[in-house]
């Protein structure tokens, strides 16, 4: 088996840049959302379509990013 339809795109959630990486292995689409800087994955999902996997990753990432506190420096 192989990863197919590998795709990356960048969006903004709660004021933070987010990379969405998705691909398919067999019948399952996987998606991970990372925070670009520093690049840590904050949500990973799977579904039968890319759209569903991405939507779930976006939902989970949004909740976590909304809880990130910014401090004045």
């Amino acid at each position, binding site marked *: 088996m192989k990863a197919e339809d590998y795709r990356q795109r960048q969006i903004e959630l709660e004021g933070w840049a987010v990379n969405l990486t998705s691909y398919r292995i067999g019948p399952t689409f996987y998606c991970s959302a990372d925070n670009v800087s520093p690049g840590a994955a*904050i949500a990973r999902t799977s579904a039968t379509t890319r759209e569903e996997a991405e939507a779930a990753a976006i939902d989970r990432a949004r909740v976590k990013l909304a809880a990130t506190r910014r401090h004045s*420096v």
Partner: protein
Amino acid sequence: MTAYAHPEALVTTDWVATHAGDANVRIAEVDVDTTEYGKGHIPGAIGWNWTTQLADPIRRDILSKAQFEKLMSEAGISNNTTVILYGDNNNWFAAWALWQMKMYGHEDVRIMDGGRKKWLAEGRELSAEASSVASAAYQASGPDNSLRGFLDQVQAAVQGKTSALVDVRSPAEFTGEILAPPGLPETCQRGGHIPGARSIPWGKACNEDGTFKSAEELSALYGGEGVDGSKPTIAYCRIGERSSHTWFVLKYLLGYDHVKNYDGSWTEWGNLVGAPVERGAAHSAKA
């Protein structure tokens, strides 16, 4: 084009596709997301879980020599095995594993340039079946603590300005604007950076496809911040895995002699009572 100082420390995805089945080669996947291996991995590769297999399970520490020998033995790795490490996040924890393997004296351990990301993006073969291997005898040396930075050494470096400190976290972590990468739990009491540290985020060492930048680009990147190998260098991040990636770059791609990974990193320094902390952007490297 200038070559890496130790080009033998890297292999390409093509090389792995050709040599993964060689008798003396063992491929190991080490991911931030420990479920990745199960989704599909390089055929024949074993998987290591960094949370349970690449750290002491009780105290905060790397593996003991006995734990390390057991891990190698159970992975079918002998002292003369060629070990190829790869993983997600452009090899964060593959570099962490390599750092420990070097501390315990494994001679031939290399990183697959581009890691899991490149292998997937190239549509290369995957297997979902866990690989079974026969155990092997393994005898570690060391640990070689010259590769590891400890708190007292970092404190001495700050006081005496004897080492170059490289903070490889994101700029917002460096300044103190955030206490952890966006979306992750805060793991420190104070934000900012170790006084005198240069901010060189780990990702600047990588190309878009996850491979390492050229020797010229890396030399310009670190040299431009005054980190040129002319004095001992200590890299740190939050828990030590991102900084092991930078440690690998400085030690093996640029060939700096004296480079330590301070795995205590910001979770140690940023929780330490009385530790000096700088906030805001770094001062000029030339100052």
